[in-house]
């Protein structure tokens, strides 16, 4: 029976007891067997009187370290050696009669194997219990993970749908219920692709799927029939053995995103159409001045065939590389871009010279606006138009106005010619008379020297007088008028009054001149200022011509005001109506029977060109008062003094 105890565990343990997971275990096992055989030799081989129970610790060692199999094997080794030793009459069990020896041997075996096996099985039991416990903990943890995953799935905004291999819905989360409108009980058991009327059946055909996740966008339908654009993630579900046992589908509603994208596309299209349909050139630059976009007009105006010629290039180097006179204009010296980038409200360049692809240039007006992203300036948009024609027509118009002003002056002098002839004839007559008188005085004896001196002095003065009148006339008749100069108002008024006085006297018109001693010179064109005074005075004289003789009064006053000098011409004529007053400065508007109606409009443009204004008011009592208000100006910054370009009228 003890022998059965020795063999049976070995049979049960089978080959598994030889399974060593690590080389150290094998070494330990070999050491154990070696030491055990040595101990057996000590007990049974030599006569050292070593008690047989000394072998028990080795069996216990085997039991603890190698379980039932180890325990049984060690017991078997001891039993075999003990049996053989006893049979050969050696060892502690060969001392007595064969029967006693056999009995002792059996008791020894029983002790060895029972204690070994007991110990081994106790240890095995404990290990198993520990293993069970660990497994339980693992299972719990796994369960928790699953629960958490389930909660995640359930709380997901996206629809998460589980299907079996036939496409039948097995799982349906709250997101799916929200997205598709079917609740869980309606959905489970249905075929997913049919339920959502997926256009592509293959979407959900697991057989065509590889292991990888498939992602695409498609259209599904809700329970109420409305279409939804979804981004669909489909992936196979594997079992532990790697077989596909189902499909999971995650659907994300992208209807809004699609709509926004579509709206963006549409607005981009619209913007492109607008950009390409405007006449102005429009282009964008980044903060370093490189072209980011350009419209068709900008290509046309700048003479390029395709946008590629501009995109990414430094616009300064392409279109702003030279000064108007053709000298190079390095980008480093051009502060336009930095000016634009730091001026959020935009910068307007009235007249810039831009260069075309073929090397020609044109005048352009530019409007710019900085582009920002948040607080950061990322670049600027530039709109420009070719103003060459406008500048030309402005120049033409200015020339025309100059010619018209000249014609107007010639016309006025023509009207005054009678009176002016009188102004010149008067001193000429006096000169001739004095000359004749002098000749006769030379005949007298003794020579009347004081009288002769008086005659000659008067001849000299009258000659000067006639010359001055001619000089004034010539100035007014000159086509190219003077240039910017300091114009003293009072002497200018005096000269004009002199010119018109003869005419006024002839018409019995009294001109009352009131000059303020506090007048300061203005910067302007003397002839143009004279023209304004002459015109206003002639109008005033015309206005009073039909009055009673005693009521033909014209007044001219100079008045200094803060910042401006005023020349005021008033008359006691009939005045004009409100309606006429509205149009009085318009060209070709006239209240006279003769005249083109250009005088006042020319006067107004002259005064305006001096930065001033011409105003007309009805006097409280009778007649009109015209005020030419010339601002006190300083010399233009880039001009050192007189003879700068004259004002364009």
């Amino acid at each position, binding site marked *: 029976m003890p022998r059965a105890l020795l063999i049976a565990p070995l049979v049960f343990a089978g080959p598994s007891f030889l399974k060593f997971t690590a080389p150290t275990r094998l070494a330990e096992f070999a050491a154990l067997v070696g030491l055990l055989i040595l101990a057996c030799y000590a007990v049974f081989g030599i006569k050292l009187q070593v008690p047989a129970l000394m072998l028990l610790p080795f069996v216990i060692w085997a039991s603890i370290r190698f379980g039932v199999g180890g325990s049984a094997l060690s017991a078997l080794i001891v039993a075999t050696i003990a049996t053989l030793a006893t049979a050969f009459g050696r060892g502690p069990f060969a001392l007595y009669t064969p029967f006693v020896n056999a009995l002792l041997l059996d008791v020894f075996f029983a002790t060895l194997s029972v204690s070994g096996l007991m110990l081994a099985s106790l240890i095995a039991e404990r290990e198993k219990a520990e293993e069970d416990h660990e497994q339980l903990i693992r299972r719990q943890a796994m369960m928790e993970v699953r629960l958490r995953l389930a909660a995640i799935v359930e709380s997901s905004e996206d629809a998460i749908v589980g299907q079996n291999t036939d496409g039948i819905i097995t799982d349906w989360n709250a997101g799916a219920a929200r997205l598709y409108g079917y609740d869980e009980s309606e959905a489970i058991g249905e075929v997913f692709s049919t339920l959502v009327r997926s256009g592509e059946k293959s979407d959900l055909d697991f057989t065509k799927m590889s292991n990888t996740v498939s992602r695409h966008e498609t259209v599904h339908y809700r329970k109420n029939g409305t279409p939804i654009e979804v981004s669909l993630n489909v992936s196979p579900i594997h079992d532990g053995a790697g077989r596909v046992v189902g499909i999971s589908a995650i659907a994300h509603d992208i209807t809004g995103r699609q709509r926004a994208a579509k709206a963006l596309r549409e607005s981009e299209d619209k913007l492109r159409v607008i950009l390409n349909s405007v006449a102005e050139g429009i282009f964008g630059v980044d903060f370093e001045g490189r072209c980011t976009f350009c419209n068709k007009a900008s290509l046309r105006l700048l003479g390029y065939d395709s946008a590629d010629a501009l995109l990414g290039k430094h616009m300064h180097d392409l279109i702003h590389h030279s000064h108007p006179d053709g000298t190079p204009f390095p980008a480093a010296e051009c502060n336009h871009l930095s000016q634009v980038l730091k001026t959020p409200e935009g910068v307007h360049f009235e007249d810039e010279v831009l260069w075309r692809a073929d090397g020609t240039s044109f005048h352009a007006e530019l409007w710019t606006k900085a582009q920002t992203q948040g607080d950061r300036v990322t670049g600027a948009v530039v709109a420009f138009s070719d103003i060459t024609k406008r500048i030309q027509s402005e120049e033409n118009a200015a020339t025309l106005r100059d010619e018209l002003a000249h014609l107007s002056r010639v016309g006025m002098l023509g009207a005054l010619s009678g009176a002016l002839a009188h*102004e010149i004839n008067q001193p000429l007559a006096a000169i001739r008379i004095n000359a004749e008188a002098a000749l006769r*005085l030379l005949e007298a004896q003794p020579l009347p020297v004081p009288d002769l001196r008086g005659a000659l002095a*008067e001849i000299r003065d009258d000659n000067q007088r006639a010359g001055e009148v001619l000089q004034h006339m010539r100035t007014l008749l000159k086509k190219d008028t003077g240039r910017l100069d300091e114009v003293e108002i009072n002497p200018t008024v005096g000269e004009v009054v002199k010119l018109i006085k003869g005419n006024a006297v002839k018409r019995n018109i009294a001109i009352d001149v009131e000059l303020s001693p506090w007048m300061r010179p203005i910067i302007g064109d003397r002839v143009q200022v004279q023209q304004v005074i002459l015109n206003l005075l002639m109008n005033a004289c015309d206005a009073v011509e039909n009055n009673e003789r005693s009521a033909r009064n014209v007044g001219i006053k100079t008045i200094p005001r803060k910042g401006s000098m005023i020349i005021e011409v008033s008359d006691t004529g009939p005045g004009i109506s409100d309606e006429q007053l509205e149009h009085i400065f318009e060209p070709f508007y006239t209240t006279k029977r003769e005249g083109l109606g250009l005088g006042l409009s020319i006067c107004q443009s002259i005064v305006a060109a001096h930065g001033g204004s011409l105003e007309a008011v009805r006097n409280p009592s009778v007649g009109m008062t015209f005020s030419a208000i010339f601002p006190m100006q300083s010399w233009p910054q880039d001009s050192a003094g007189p003879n700068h370009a004259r004002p364009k009228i």
Partner: protein
Amino acid sequence: MTSTQSGPVIYVIDDDRSMRRSLRRLLKVSGWHVKAFASAEAFLAELETLGGGFLLVDIQLPGITGLELLERLQELAVPCRVIAMSGSSDATVEAQALRLGATTFLHKPFDPRVLLDALEQMAQAHEKARILG
């Protein structure tokens, strides 16, 4: 008008100072007596006190014009020989002046000798009329 002096006085009416001064100088050196006025008003004011003489009047005068003065003299029936002057050439003015009794019309700047000749002729006619009278 009665002459209190040896020869007739020439009354110069011109608003231009240079004209008055030069005429006075020339007429004096030519042996005439001269009295000059700056306006018709000034002349009319002294009319009562003036003796006989010839009138040398500018047509373009401020206030009462030369032509109006001639009209006024006709109305007052003052017998007077008149030479009219004008700085501007206006045919109607000349015709009017001659109609109003001016014997000569001079366009400034006239030849002073023409004036002196005209005065001489007027003086002779005056003398003849006085002798005949």
